[in-house]
């Protein structure tokens, strides 16, 4: 209000430039004020608490959960190393490393499979006549907006020992014993693929939609075979979509909690479950904090990779 008053009471000699500058200052301040409630809520209940996680990762664990306010790097050491209880030597924390490795491997495989299935699907949608295209796209979007837990539950019913797949296979006499898919890495990967596939198809479609398909025809006219057209014409054009889709599938897969918990059971944990465990039965909050930050750093690196590559692809046909 003070700035407002000065502008109004300013003598007429004030130059237009000064008035404009004053207006801009006031405008900027008002824009900050309008954003303030959203920022306050986010800082209170999302951004701020992340800072506390960093602090907690450097504290000593309390006996019954919680922490003692004593500086310690034990949590960070125990992310990767473990101290032998008998001879006090340091070794690699195999349990953690195997979970890191599983998380990375399953997320990578999920992304790869999503690309293999999602690419033709996006191509199919992009080549439909305009009228039906919206409908196909809607069909991809619906599962994306429905509850992830329910979709995990749906895929679980399909792959369970008593589930549809096994019932049909046994009914047809192909197998006598149900295939044990549940509680394996395969189950977790299938679940992740099922729940995150739309995240691959949508950005792929977005970049394919803009392809001028005459270019593809031109490729064929110049005697390129299908593989060459795919590699030399289509792929370079949809590269941004491939990168965006891969990142969008990889990141939530890496931090997945619900899908591995429901489909993997206790033995096939991923990083998300390991983190949760430290705040439950594990009662090691500093370790849980250190693991959370580790996960966040990996995700940030993936995002930076994406931003860097998305920036590069700024110049492209279309």
């Amino acid at each position, binding site marked *: 209000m003070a700035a407002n008053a000065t502008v109004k009471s300013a003598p007429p000699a004030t130059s237009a430039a000064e008035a404009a500058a004053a207006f*801009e200052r006031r*405008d*900027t301040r008002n*824009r*900050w*004020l*309008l*954003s303030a*409630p*959203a*920022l306050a*809520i*986010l800082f*209170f*209940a*999302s951004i701020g608490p992340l800072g*506390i*996680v960093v602090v907690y990762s450097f504290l000593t664990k309390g006996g019954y959960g*919680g922490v003692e306010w004593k500086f310690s790097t034990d949590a960070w050491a125990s992310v990767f190393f473990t101290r032998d209880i008998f001879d006090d030597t340091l070794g690699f924390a195999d349990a953690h490393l195997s979970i890191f490795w599983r998380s990375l491997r399953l997320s990578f495989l999920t992304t790869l499979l999503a690309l293999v299935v*999602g690419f*033709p*699907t996006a191509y*199919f949608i992009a080549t439909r006549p305009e009228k039906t295209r919206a409908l196909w796209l*809607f069909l991809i979007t619906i*599962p994306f*907006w*429905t*509850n*992830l*837990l*329910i979709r995990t*539950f*749906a895929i679980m*019913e*399909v792959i369970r020992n*008593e589930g549809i797949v096994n*019932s049909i296979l046994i009914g047809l006499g192909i197998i006598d014993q149900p295939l044990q898919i549940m509680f394996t890495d395969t189950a977790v990967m299938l679940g992740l693929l*099922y729940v995150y*596939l739309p995240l691959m*198809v949508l950005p792929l479609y977005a970049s394919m939609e803009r392809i001028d*398909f005459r270019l*593809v025809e031109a490729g*064929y006219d110049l005697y390129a075979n*299908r593989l060459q057209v795919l590699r030399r014409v289509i792929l370079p054009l949809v590269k941004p979509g491939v990168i965006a889709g891969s990142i969008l599938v990889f*990141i939530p897969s*890496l*931090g997945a909690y619900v899908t591995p*918990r*429901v489909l993997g059971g206790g033995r096939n944990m991923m990083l*998300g479950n390991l*983190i*949760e465990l430290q*705040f439950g039965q594990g009662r090691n*909050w500093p370790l*849980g*904090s250190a693991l*959370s*930050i580790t*996960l966040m750093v990996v*995700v940030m690196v993936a995002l930076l990779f994406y931003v860097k590559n998305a920036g590069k692809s700024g110049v492209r046909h279309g």
Partner: protein
Amino acid sequence: MARAHFDVKKQTGFTTIALFCFVMLYAPILTLVVYSFNAGTSIAIWEGFSWRWYESAFANEQVQDAAIRSVIIASFAAFVSTIVATMAALATTRTRPFTGITFIFASINQPLMVPEIVTGVALLIFFAIIKIETGYTGLAYLLIAHTAFCIPFAYLPIRARLENMDLSLERAAADLYATPWRTFRYVTLPLLWPGILAGGMLAFVISLDDVVITELVKSAGQDTLPTYMLGQMRRIMTPEMNAISTVFLAISILMVTVFFLLNRKKS
């Protein structure tokens, strides 16, 4: 000659995989819906049509309790996040870049960039501190947590709508001596309304669907429908779960359809 008739838009291999993909996406959901009407207690052996699991789900007090809590939290989170997101969207669109605008963008989008499990753990720690200091263990923790992660979802459609609106009508209102408030109330708001509604509905669905953050933040006896279902998944399941899921799915699909229609009108 065959080459001349070659159609790039018909790639049989791709079409087969695409159709397979659609079947893969919908078959499990359809199976789940079908077995919610099973007369038997199995979720794999069909024993005839019945509404019994819907009746038992509606009569189940834990389900009622969790469903009501879910709706309360989602309504609150959608309402508050949509209001603050609308304000933030008005502040950050149709302007020259100003000092700090990137900071505001980054802050608003932050919940989308950090894995849910990390946000959940951060809130668990932070709220544990507050719980010890104040002794309060009510629903407010879940309300504020949901409001925070709903903000980017409410913000995006509103911002998209605003960016497609030009300023000329508002300038005209101002030229005709409308106060800023009246300009907003009678010009900006009616034009922006579909975006606000879309943002609010998206926020509602996102809050309704949340499992991870709720699971970590909730105190004892504060189950929402998804966390109740997650808890039930450890036991032997009956088609009651399918019935709850089907109702849940129906609500989500309805809201998403309306969301799409709202967004389509714009273009």
